[in-house]
């Protein structure tokens, strides 16, 4: 399946070289979870605080499908 990935803030360093603003496309086998996607790009799932698929907040165990647009966000807690 083809996914569009968006990485934010400290997670952006895991985007492949050449990607702009942490946005890139990725090919993964069908049915992988969001946590598996994070691991596939070298991010420990513990470092991901919010996960968004097609604009909706989901858990790490959420199963992905072709053309999903996935956003991964680190924890933000400052004031």
């Amino acid at each position: 399946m083809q996914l569009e990935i968006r990485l934010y803030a400290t997670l952006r360093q895991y985007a492949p070289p050449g990607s702009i603003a942490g946005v890139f496309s990725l090919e993964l086998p069908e049915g992988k979870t969001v946590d598996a996607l994070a691991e596939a790009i070298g991010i420990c799932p513990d470092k991901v605080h919010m996960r968004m698929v097609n604009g909706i907040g989901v858990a790490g165990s959420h199963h992905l499908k072709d053309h999903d647009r996935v956003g991964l966000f680190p924890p933000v807690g400052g004031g």
Partner: protein
Amino acid sequence: MTTADSLAQLQDGRMPQRYLRNLGTIGIAGQIRLLQAKVAVVGAGGLGGHVVELLARQGVGELLIIDGDSFAQHNWNRQILSTEKNLGMNKALAAAERVAAINSDTQVQAVSRMLEPKAAEAWLGGMDVIVDALDSFAARRMLLQAAQNLRIPLVHGAIAGFTGQVATILPDEKIMPEFLIGETMATSGVELQLGNPAATPAMAAALQSQEVVKLITGVGETLRRQILYFDMEYNLFEKIQLKERV
């Protein structure tokens, strides 16, 4: 001018001069609601300082400001209430002084103590809206619990580096709070690495203040059941829909 004078003018169908530029957005009915509203701002640092400033100027009638911390030099880069003259001063008391200088219609109660589980509900009872302007996950969890127990809407805001997030949580909604305040017992987020620059808390606080105004006046749509996440390094804005807990 007093609050009663402003309310009398408004009830007579006239916008007081000091609120004239609010007329086109919230109208006279909205201004009356704001002047009759009670808003708690918990935390008077990077977020809370701007929230207090904006809500006092907009004309909220009563502000309860809670912060047990005092100004230090590392606050100067972003905390609008901190100056070279008030180093060491309690932040809630500095906020009260600022409001008194801005708008005599706004009554302030300053609590110069940190939020405590036992006292939180006693302090916050009777508020119309609570603003989360804190800086740790533990304190945010405590505040969210108090807001839910008291059935008071909460406007959450948090920042780290160029990024920030704002959300409005209504008492009848069982959204997953771990989206806001962490699934783990971590005490803080990536702000430890990215820091807290000048513009990011101002941005989040402006969004939070507008949420408060919308909640009280009924104008527009609030960020209920969603998080607005912004990343100003690349001018990215995402609205993340939150599902209700089953």
